[in-house]
Every structure is written in structure tokens, then in C-alpha cells.
């Protein structure tokens, strides 16, 4: 599966369009991470727990998108966009979408 946020795939030609595919996850932070974040609240700096949490979640969203693309028989996803929105205080939604294509 080729992923890109360009409109075409470099070095390949597009043979078929499969339409929009997307994936999302909503993740909440757990108490341990929240505690560390409370400490960081005093000293400032990077919240490593949150960084990890968000990268795991984003990976999962991408996996779901790829699974959807696989099910329609595509081998590339182009024009990928990410969006993040915080739903409540403790949870964030990560959404990724793109166009599924067959290229060769």
C-alpha cells in the first residue's frame, strides 16, 4: 500500500479510482499518564505520554483506512489529510482520509 499526501503517485500511473476511504479513533488518556501530565504541569516541557498516545492512535486510524482501501482492492491512497479534534476534556478524535486508487 502506497500512502502519500500528493495528488498523484510519483513514478506510477493511475489506472482506477475507488473513491474516498477514511479511518478514525477516539482515544482517552489513562490515569497514570494524567498524573505525569500533572507533574509536567509545573515544570513544563514535552508530555511524552501524550505524544505516544497520539502516535499510537494515529497509527490505528491509518491502519483502519488501509484496511478499508484493501477491501475495495486499491493499492495506493493519495491526497491523505489528517484532522484532530478534542471531543471532551480527556478524549481526542484522530481522523485520516484519502482517495483510494489502483496504480501500476
Amino acid at each position, binding site marked *: 500500500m502506497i500512502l*502519500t499526501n*500528493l495528488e498523484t503517485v*510519483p513514478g506510477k500511473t493511475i489506472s482506477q479510482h475507488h473513491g474516498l476511504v477514511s479511518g478514525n479513533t477516539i482515544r482517552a488518556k489513562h490515569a497514570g499518564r494524567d498524573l505525569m501530565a500533572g507533574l509536567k*504541569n509545573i*515544570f*513544563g*516541557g514535552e508530555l511524552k505520554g501524550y505524544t505516544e498516545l497520539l502516535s499510537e492512535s494515529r497509527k490505528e486510524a491509518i491502519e483502519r483506512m488501509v484496511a478499508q482501501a484493501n477491501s475495495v482492492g486499491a493499492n495506493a491512497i493519495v491526497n*491523505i489529510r*489528517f484532522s484532530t479534534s478534542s471531543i471532551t476534556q480527556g478524549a481526542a478524535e484522530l481522523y485520516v482520509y484519502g482517495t483510494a486508487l489502483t496504480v501500476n
Partner: protein
Amino acid sequence: MGQLIFILCLLILGLVFGTFFEKKHFKSLSERDQKFRGIILSNKKDHSFLKEAQNSALVTGHAVIALDYFKRFAAILTNLIGGRVKSYESLLVRARREAILRMKEKASLAGFDTVINVKIETSNIGGSAGKKNGLGAIEVFAYGTAVKRS
């Protein structure tokens, strides 16, 4: 009275450690900036070298950075008066540079030397500093397509 002293202690801790960590972070940022100077970034989609390019990959980088206690306090005060919120300015600069550097690092590890169509997205993770339980933490997420100029 005891509570006041406690808050004062937190403010001093925040000021001392926050400034220390920020300086350290900026130093490490400029060091890594030098290291990955060879990776060229662009937010354009079309490049002449794209026709010859054989390989490409999506690269991402992100960082979540929080304000220290002193800066949160300063941000709340500036909220009342208005004007430039300096504590947030440096926070965003740090997060953005870190996110971009991580993206560059991934591109260079995979053997690419250019990242095109770079998009940078900022989102609020822990609520704003002025609100109750607000962390004053932000996430910056950078992504783009890595290619190799032949």
C-alpha cells in the same frame, strides 16, 4: 497563608525549571537543525524532479508540549489585560520546530532527501491555560510526502 506560599513555591519551581528545560530544548533543536539541514522542505505539490522520482512515502512528526506553572500564570494574567501572550508564543515555536524535526528525521532514516507538500496542524490537547483543569498543552502535527531528488 500556607496556600499562598505553596502557590509561590510552584511559581518559582515553574520559573526555574521551565526556563532551564526550555533553554535546553532550544539548544537541542538548533543542534538537530544543523544535522538535518540537508533535508529540503516544501509545501508545494508540483516539482520538476517528481517525474523521475521512483519512490515516495508519507512521513509524519508530532510533539505535545505543555506550559510550565509560571507561564500558565503569566498567560492567565495576559488574558485579563490582552496583548501578546509571550508564554504561548515560545510554546508553539518549540512544538512546531520539534514536530518538523521529527518528520525530517524519519525522512532521512528512510533515505529520502526532500519532503514536499508539507502540512502543519496545531491542536489543543489539554484545554487552555485559563480554564479549570486546563493543562495549556498543545500538539503540533506535521506531515508530508518524502521523495528523493535524483
